[in-house]
């Protein structure tokens, strides 16, 4: 869905997504690194089970929610990628509701 321009030569940053090894670049957010790696789905919805992927890339939509190093509900588009991050698809929302504060 996305490719990286040749001038984007930031240092490579290895991470895993659902156990698969991938490489992003310095300066990537988690969501950008996933898009660059060809991942377009990072969460599923509680009610319908529908897949979702990053929509706004600026913290508005929450469709980039993923689990990072065991912490659920992280907004992938706001978190900078760090070497060795273990990122996982976030399934459903029951857990999300228990974890989040009042709405």
């Amino acid at each position, binding site marked *: 869905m996305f490719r*990286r321009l040749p001038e984007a030569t930031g240092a490579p940053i290895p991470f895993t997504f659902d156990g698969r090894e991938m490489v992003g670049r310095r300066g990537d*957010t988690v969501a950008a690194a996933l898009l660059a790696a060809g991942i377009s789905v990072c969460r599923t919805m509680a009610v319908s089970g529908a897949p979702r992927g990053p929509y*706004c890339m600026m913290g*508005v939509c929450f469709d980039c929610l993923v689990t990072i190093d065991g912490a659920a509900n992280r907004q992938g588009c706001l978190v900078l990628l760090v070497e060795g991050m273990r990122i996982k698809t976030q399934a459903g929302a029951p857990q999300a509701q228990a974890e989040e*504060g*009042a*709405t």
Partner: protein
Amino acid sequence: MKTIAAIEAFADRYDLAIVGAGPAGLAAASLAVAHGVDVVVLDENASPGGQIYRAVTSTPMTRREILGEDYWRGVELVQEFSGSASSYAPSTTVWNVARGLDGDSLGRDFEIGVSLRGKARLLRAKEVILATGAQERPFPIPGWTLPGVMTAGAAQIALKSSGLVPDGHLVLAGTGPLLYLVAAQLIEAGASIRALLDTTPRANWMSALTATPGFLASPYLAKGLALLRMVHRRLDVVGGITALRAEGQKRLNRVAFERAGRRTELDCDLLLLHQGIVPSINLSNAIGCAHDWDDVQLAFRPQVDAWFASTVQGVAIAGDSAGIAGGESAAARGRIAALGAAFRLERIGAGQRDRDAAPLRAELALLARGRRFLDVFHRPAKAFRVPSDDATLVCRCEEVSAKTIRETVMLGACGPNQMKAFTRCGMGPCQGRLCGLTVTEMITDARAVSPAEVGYYRLRPPVKPVTLAEIAALPQTADAEKAVAR
């Protein structure tokens, strides 16, 4: 500039807290600090610039022509800020701003709930400037939640911060200056765009020209025309689109559109939607600032005075969050708001405040010329604001359909807050950011009243999700508990 990298590094108290490090926030901080104000800038992004100047000092993009000179103008603002004595907290989320009540230990200070790297803290400030900017208007069409559908702004962010360009079959759709700017940037960056589906209503041309003859004298005219010409020359622009539909099972693989009553389909891997930007008002709404409906920009914006002070004493709102006026105006507005705050903090007198503001006001007046043309010309069609297709999801988070919203109005939900209670729309993590305007306009439409009368969600803190673990780890003073439990 003093960068705050850990929650412990914050001071307990600042004179002025600025939320947002876009042009308004950066300009406000640099000027306030110069007048001896102790400032902290709180920003969600990892580097300063906001959305318009996103990653301007860290972008991997080296060919300047791809993003254009308007983008690089941000370097100066960021450098001025970096050289200032302001504190700067990147990657920091503000989830609450609350005013102390007379009699409690806060006095008249504000208490600001922030999170940084999974840890929360409550800070105090005497004055607050909200420079939260804008977000893209909701674009509720069938299939807009499918993976593979993103906003044009999202693609621009991926390009600016990571040097990513769309690959495969790409279609852009909608209206507004940013749509054409992103198209031009993606073309320059080497993306191949199958088509740009322009949803600008044909009638907008006439209403814009007759309503705003001043546009001929506007600084936007030459720039806008050059952009339009470039895009029209280099790609297939299909105008007069009256309906759009994103199709696919688990992800997008087709976009269908209607034009002059005829339906056409295009294979498509990535669909970028955009129909203008609207002020980000979640924080000002939760603080209790009064807002008005803007019938031209079709959005709510906070009431502000000549110093961009809101109706809540001590809270000013600058930049696009005070009504869309663009990045250059945002910086001037930020500086005016900073002068207002420096005056209230007794760092400058009224004479100096007024003198220093005069050239900024002149600049704003110049930049405002022709703005109305853009607003009227790019006013999105009702068909794309009030979905007629029953299955279209209005609330993405709670998956509430247009049908449910319409039926609930019939059952007697006469405002957005009742709608929320009946259907859960607006109760997900995005807190109405992507359904609020749609819900207001759908109720308006069904009840044949004005959006001003229908109003918007009444938002409550926290305005961004904060985990129970973070709240539990806060220092448990009585005031702290109140701020969270309000």
